[in-house]
């Protein structure tokens, strides 16, 4: 008697579990079918961005929509981005997701960290970007077989750091239950993996104006500086990529930093010797790096601070120099945090 009861119970439990999985873990396949954004903007502009969304549901349920936008940290997106939506299931707005909210299927990460771990910086070349994540104000209800259409209208004030910028903005839509998961159910038009989320990477978007230096996240640069924002008391790594284009240094096996620092009291200090102090270490694949402590490198006094730096990359003799854009003009860098 007992074994038979046990088998029946097991079946009931299995059916209940399958039903529960169907309720909790099923949602709608989603895709961003179109993104509309101006080709460029000026620092301080509020840029309108429209995402057109299509969804195809394979079960009934109710959930909120997640929206993530990848942008430069300096734009302070949590303060400068708003979004609303219109859809066949109703209209509403988005609110910022608190950093304390853990993402579904995110292994303990919050939504920005989960997006960062899953999508990285979407092909941008400078790691000074963040995912700004919002969720729809109201959950919407859907039924098996529903085809939902809608649009998200983003208003993003660009260039809060006052820097002209070239960047690939990226967008992710998902829901608060399924995170970045997929199923094997084929849904025509939603790709072979039938994802419950979708990422869209835009073309290079240009922001002009501003008083800062151009920050180009989009195009390979002859030199980059890490961290992108630093003061003279940071350790600053300057990298030179000899593969970006043919330069006067092509074929040189040793390259050196030749830099001029300017202090807050107007003094200029040039360090342009070809010694161990300025030798850039080869790190493979035609790339060279040097990490300096600017205060010590330029030998400034305790009462001084460095405001900016210009620099060239030279060969061992110092006669061959590479500057900004492979010209005779120096690369420039401002010591600032914003």
């Amino acid at each position, binding site marked *: 008697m007992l074994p038979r009861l046990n088998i029946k119970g097991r079946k009931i439990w299995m059916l209940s579990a399958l039903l529960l999985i169907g309720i909790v873990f099923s949602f709608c396949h989603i895709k961003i079918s179109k993104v509309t954004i101006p080709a460029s903007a000026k620092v301080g502009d509020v840029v309108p961005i429209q995402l057109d969304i299509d969804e195809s549901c394979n079960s009934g349920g109710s959930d909120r929509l997640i929206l993530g936008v990848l942008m430069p940290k300096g734009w302070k997106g949590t303060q400068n981005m708003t979004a609303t939506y219109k859809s066949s299931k109703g209209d509403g707005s988005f609110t910022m997701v608190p950093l304390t909210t853990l993402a579904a299927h995110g292994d303990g990460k919050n939504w920005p960290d989960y997006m960062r771990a899953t999508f990285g910086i979407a092909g941008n070349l400078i790691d000074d970007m963040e995912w700004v994540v919002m969720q729809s104000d109201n959950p919407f209800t859907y039924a098996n077989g529903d085809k939902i259409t809608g649009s998200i209208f983003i208003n993003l004030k660009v260039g809060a750091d006052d820097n002209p910028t070239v960047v690939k903005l990226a967008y992710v839509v998902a829901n608060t239950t399924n995170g970045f998961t997929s199923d094997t159910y084929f849904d025509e038009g939603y790709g072979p993996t039938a994802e419950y989320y979708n990422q869209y990477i835009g073309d290079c978007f240009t922001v002009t104006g501003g008083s800062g230096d151009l920050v180009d996240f989009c195009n390979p640069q002859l030199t980059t500086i890490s961290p992108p924002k630093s003061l003279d008391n*940071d350790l600053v790594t300057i990298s030179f990529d000899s593969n970006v284009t043919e330069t006067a240094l092509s074929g040189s096996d040793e390259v050196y930093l030749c830099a001029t620092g300017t202090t807050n009291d107007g003094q200029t200090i040039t360090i342009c010797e070809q010694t161990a102090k300025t030798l850039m270490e080869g790190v493979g694949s035609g790339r060279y790096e040097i990490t300096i*402590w600017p205060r010590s490198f330029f030998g400034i006094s305790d009462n001084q601070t460095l405001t900016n730096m210009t620099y060239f990359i030279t060969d061992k003799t110092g006669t061959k120099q590479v500057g900004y854009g492979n010209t005779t003009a120096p690369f420039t860098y401002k010591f600032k945090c914003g």
Partner: protein
Amino acid sequence: MKCYFILTTFCLLLYACKVEEISPVGEAPKNISGSWKVLKATRNGTDITSAFDFTQFRVKFDSAGNYTIVNKIPFLVNTNGTYSLDDPAYPFKITFTPQGGTAVATSFNYITTAGIRQLNLTFVPGCDLNAYIYTLEKDN
């Protein structure tokens, strides 16, 4: 004879079961006196130990509560001064007070790796976005 044997066994068992009083052992105060060097350095999570010359830097703590910086690099403080722990036995925080300067505190992360004490110090010498962690080890 049998009675004596039973009585003796009973007495031995009683003695054997006697509760021994052990005085609680207090946690020893953390002593960081000595000269410390940088074993590892990270900037925003990236290992930069081999990218910069940290080998000449030393921070020396004495038992009177003074510290000395030798061969400066970006650090919590740039001038000599005094240090203190928030609790001598169970410290969570170490505070550096440079001469004529403002006190700077950071978490006291005093770990043992392969039987050797290490001191992890987290600090921000420049922009707030740029966090550094130095893992220090005694060099004497």
